[in-house]
């Protein structure tokens, strides 16, 4: 019999790492697949903020693949993922996280990949009861069914709590050597990690997607409301992760760099946005997203001046660049703290 091949959904966390290793141990050839939705926490923010640059950085999915000695395929699904975010059939979790639809989507993409690359089955690190929305006893069959994976979807960490799948029935894997984990406790995972000799792994469970973040969800909802439509481009969702967002008027908001790394990142968007910075003092770069007349620009300048080193000065000279026309200087009194209304800050 030729060696069977499985594709493993790899997030970079512990569970998917363990699931892949459990199947590798049974002599199956495993390759990893990882999907980039644009909302992945992995990588981005620590690549932007200067204070985080001193910390060791790695993409955990790649790191896991290297530890397991397997290939990893990272797939850009930004465009296709929009329908998951905008119209989740199963709704959202606590914030704008469409966890169940997301899992269905990712497994369905893995099915497509497996078919195109002649792989036999799909594995995930799911555990019954681990997550309140997407990993419940009632939802695991939904993922298998709606993704089209059906009984070619194997969850090695909790397989013995679930009906037999085809890889088990056909003897591609030995069910007895799979696991029966359930619930929110992480102890069985930690014990298995110890057995495999894994001592260094990413903090498991949760926190891998910006859509689960309440503050991020507020900013995304604000973006949709301001534009009058629930749409986004990759630059929109990147910019929501960066800077201080202040919307003083319904028709424009400011994205103000909080430190050098963010200012450098925002520099890359100067040609696309009206932008402001202090000339007379050190201060941040701010992008203006929306439309603004002269009065709006004066207000924007006063707000941005507030975040410059001239915040307590009687006036700050600001440069305003409308992109299409030459930049000009404007002297403004910085906003006082109480002038920045609480509701403006996203």
């Amino acid at each position, binding site marked *: 019999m030729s060696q069977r091949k499985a594709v493993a959904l790899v997030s970079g966390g512990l569970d998917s790492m363990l699931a892949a290793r459990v199947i590798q141990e049974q002599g199956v050839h495993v390759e990893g697949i990882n999907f*980039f939705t644009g909302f992945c926490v992995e990588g981005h923010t620590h*690549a932007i903020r200067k204070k985080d640059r001193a910390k060791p950085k790695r993409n955990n999915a790649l790191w896991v693949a290297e530890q397991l000695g*397997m290939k990893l395929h990272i797939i850009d699904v930004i465009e296709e993922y929009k329908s998951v975010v905008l119209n989740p059939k199963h709704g959202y979790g606590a914030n704008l996280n469409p966890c169940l639809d997301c899992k269905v989507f990712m497994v369905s993409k893995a099915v497509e990949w497996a078919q195109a690359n002649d792989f036999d089955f799909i594995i995930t690190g799911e555990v019954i009861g681990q997550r309140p929305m997407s990993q419940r006893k009632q939802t695991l069959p939904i993922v298998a069914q709606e993704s089209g994976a059906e009984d070619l979807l194997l969850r090695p960490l909790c397989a013995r709590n679930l009906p037999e799948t085809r890889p088990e029935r056909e003897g591609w894997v030995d069910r007895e050597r799979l696991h029966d984990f359930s619930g929110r406790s992480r102890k069985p995972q930690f014990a298995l990690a110890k057995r495999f000799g894994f001592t260094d792994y990413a903090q498991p469970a949760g926190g891998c997607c910006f859509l689960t973040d309440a503050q991020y969800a507020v900013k995304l909802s604000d973006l949709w409301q301001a534009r009058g439509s629930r749409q986004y481009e990759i630059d929109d969702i990147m910019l929501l992760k960066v800077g201080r967002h202040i919307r003083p008027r319904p028709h424009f908001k400011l994205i103000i760099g909080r430190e050098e790394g963010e200012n450098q990142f925002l520099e890359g968007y100067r040609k696309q946005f009206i932008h402001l910075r202090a000339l007379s003092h050190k201060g941040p770069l701010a992008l203006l997203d929306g439309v603004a007349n002269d009065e709006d620009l004066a207000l924007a300048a006063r707000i941005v001046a507030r975040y410059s080193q001239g915040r307590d000065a009687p006036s700050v000279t600001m440069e305003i660049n409308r992109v299409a026309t030459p930049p000009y200087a404007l002297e403004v009194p910085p906003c006082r703290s109480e002038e920045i209304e609480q509701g403006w800050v996203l």
Partner: protein
Amino acid sequence: MSETELDARNLLCPLPVIRTQDRVAQLAAGEVLSVHCTDPGARVDIPTWCRINGHEVLGIEQQGRELIIRIQVGTD
């Protein structure tokens, strides 16, 4: 042999890796790809991707904020 360039500047992890992966898939074994990026994370991630996928990093050069990673495409 000619060297192909890939502009991955101003992209954040994992996009430089994805763009590298997609471009390497179009090249023949032995060809060289020179990836230009600005995300400091690429210094770790692109060589890791190369190791697990059987490609060789010929060199990494820092030019100001820009990182240039030269990759020789492997046989698999």
